[in-house]
């Protein structure tokens, strides 16, 4: 759509006069996010979605009905005042919009990009309900991203920090949850240190989510803000091994601890051939490619990755999409995404599925691998699959896939990436007596994220199993509030 500034002016004038009726708002077309051309982006790591222009942002903001009950806020795990920030965008006050978001979310540039809005705020949007299509809801995430990116260009603001309380907080894991806890406890005036096992901070935002979906520069900027607030970040420090939680609290003087260590051990399918050369967990594949920049191997980066011609990715979630799209960019001619159920049941975001298809990822749904085949040197040469059909709904409400007997067939591939989720990391369980875990190895917490140990809180994947960036941030918020309260009662 060609921008028509005059039309926008007219709409804004009517909006300001209170004359823009719901009917007028419904008539404003939903704005499309500009994206890098699908053929071109197969060859590069640059971000795919390019972000709204100012014109688009304001047009999109005018689509918002400004509902009195703001159902969208209910859908947001951190309860951002969505209606109000959108009103500010419509008014053209982008700085105000950003500061409204930042009351509740510290990482708007990240969340605007990676939150599954279609099952959160945008699912509740009255506009989407009116059109009976969630894709026609107001694009809240894109608007969030727009003001966040604009704010970053103008130099991020450093949140104010209360006078020192003399209390020390240790945060284990510098992912999205840990970052939120660090900011919230630091703002309350505590002395905060984040311990990160990797050599770079950012957690899943740097090792897992690829550059083309979330540029590393954005994460770097957010971490810089934390450091400017006075948060200390110690990398290469594995809590449980370098120091235990007990040592941190009893010997190093930390008064409270937040555990946000994220996902743990990758799951495999337990089918024959998973030990062959060329079989990766998605964690390994993405870590090599993202954090270690294996796509630059031989040009400054020293970590290798398989040079693949044909790749099978097993799974249907966001991580599977990331791995498949990364394989495309690393030069694979054929990338197959093998999923046991139908496309409708895929847990991945619609936008990611759409992008993957545009980039040429071949979806093989209602198929499931039975074994991986290798040559005499143990290199992967193929994957044998079985066809499925959908049967009766199971306990999750999704129709159960039922194997079709004798339907085995083989796909020629040289690389297999297993993206079927993670189990819990056993490290803290092995090294932290008194900390309660459930039978799956996840930490048990109360509704304020407090664990069985005094002063120790936890959230994100290590508590929830598989979660998202925003859920980890939501738990971080709750935990930080509880920690600030706890530290306030602590005499020192």
């Amino acid at each position, binding site marked *: 759509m060609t921008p028509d500034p005059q039309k926008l002016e007219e709409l804004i004038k009517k909006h300001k006069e209170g004359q823009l009726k719901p009917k007028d708002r419904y008539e404003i077309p939903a704005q499309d996010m500009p994206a890098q051309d699908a053929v071109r982006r197969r060859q590069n790591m640059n971000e795919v979605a390019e972000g709204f222009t100012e014109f688009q942002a304001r047009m999109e903001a005018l689509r918002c009905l400004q509902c009195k009950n703001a159902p969208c806020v209910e859908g947001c795990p951190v309860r951002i005042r969505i209606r109000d920030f959108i009103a500010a965008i419509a008014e053209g006050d982008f700085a105000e919009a950003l500061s409204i978001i930042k009351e509740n979310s510290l990482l708007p540039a990240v969340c605007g990009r990676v939150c599954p809005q279609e099952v959160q705020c945008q699912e509740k949007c009255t506009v989407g309900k009116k059109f009976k299509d969630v894709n026609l809801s107001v694009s809240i995430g894109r608007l969030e991203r727009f003001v966040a990116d604009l704010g970053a260009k103008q130099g991020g603001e450093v949140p104010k920090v209360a006078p020192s309380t003399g209390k020390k907080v240790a945060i284990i894991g510098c992912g999205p949850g840990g970052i939120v806890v660090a900011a919230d406890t630091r703002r309350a005036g505590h002395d905060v240190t984040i311990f990160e096992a990797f050599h770079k901070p950012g957690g899943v935002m740097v090792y897992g989510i690829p550059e083309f979906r979330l540029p590393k520069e954005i994460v770097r900027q957010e971490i810089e803000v934390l450091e400017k607030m006075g948060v200390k970040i110690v990398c290469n420090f594995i809590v449980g091994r370098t120091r235990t939680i007990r040592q941190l609290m009893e010997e190093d003087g930390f008064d409270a601890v937040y555990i946000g260590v994220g996902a743990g051990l990758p799951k495999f399918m337990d089918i024959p051939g998973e030990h062959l050369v060329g079989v990766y967990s998605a964690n390994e594949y993405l870590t090599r490619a993202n954090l270690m920049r294996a796509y630059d191997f031989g040009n400054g980066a020293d*970590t290798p990755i398989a040079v693949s011609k044909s790749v099978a990715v097993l799974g249907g979630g966001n991580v599977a999409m990331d791995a498949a799209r990364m394989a495309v960019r690393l030069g694979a001619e054929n990338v197959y995404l093998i999923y046991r159920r139908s496309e409708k049941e895929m847990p991945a975001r619609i936008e990611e599925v759409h992008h993957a298809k545009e980039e040429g990822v071949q979806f093989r749904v209602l198929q499931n691998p039975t074994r991986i085949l290798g040559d005499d040197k143990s290199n992967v040469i193929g994957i044998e699959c079985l066809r499925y059909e959908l049967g009766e709904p199971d306990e999750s409400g999704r129709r159960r896939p039922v194997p079709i007997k004798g339907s085995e067939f083989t796909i020629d591939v040289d690389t297999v990436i297993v993206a079927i989720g993670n189990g819990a990391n056993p490290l803290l369980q092995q090294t932290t007596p008194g900390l309660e875990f459930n039978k799956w190895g996840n930490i048990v917490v109360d509704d304020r994220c407090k664990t069985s140990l005094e002063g120790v809180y936890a959230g994100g994947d290590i508590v929830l199993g598989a979660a998202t960036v925003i859920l980890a941030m939501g738990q971080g918020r709750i935990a930080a509030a509880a920690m600030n309260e706890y530290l306030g009662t602590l005499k020192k």
Partner: protein
Amino acid sequence: MTFKIISKKQLSENVFQMDVFAPLVASARKAGQFVIVSPNVDHGERIPLTIAGADPQKGTIRLIFQRVGKATAQMADLHAQDAMGYVAGPLGRPTHVEKFGTVVCVGGGIGNAPLLPIATAMKTAGNKLITILGARTKELVILEDDFRAISDELLVVTDDGSYGRKALVTEPLKEVCGRAARPDLAVVIGPTIMMKFCCDVTRQFQVPTQVSLNTIMVDGTGMCGGCRVEVAGKTKFVCVDGPEFDGHQVNFDAMMKRMNAYKALEQKAYEQYRSHTCRIGLNHK
């Protein structure tokens, strides 16, 4: 945190020893544990190395490594007073040490380095210690004096007979296992193929055997699964379940094939690095 190299020593043509300042690791580490190191912070490779020793007072750990590819060549090109990119650890589960009775420790090549702290701990726990060290040739026998100082009996073999007895380590191991006073435990660390054959020997004599595996790894904390091996038919992660396993249960054949996954790529990177490094030493400080 700066991980300064305090001292460096060349033990043989391609084997180097470094004492690196890493005080937290030095005081936390136990026998059998390893670290992840990288010569540079940004895009260097993460290399798992077993800790060969530590001095908690000085805050240093001892690393012994072999120059095999680009990353280890970069490390070998660092000198005392230079800084290592980073050191993370200690990682892995410590060796289970107790008084077993007689323990036979078998080291092959660079495997002597991770073996030394375990042998020392076994000796300190009151075990009778028999040590068998093997190498291709005389120059590659490392840490012999250190082992001699703690061993009740020390046997050295070389493939070419240039030093000690001309044999593979399996020969003296067989003899030791065949003695009337059969060892109560064997600890074997070295090239995968050597560990495999040693396990074949000890299995015949029903001597329980611990091996320490050094597989391909990225994070070293349980996240990537690149280090997985098959132990007793089950998938285990060397980084969090190991690095030590019951040698009689390890699928060494599958492990050896996985170890070669990146050989061609690594060779290319190494050659590229070598051709960019001045051979007459002008890159050196």
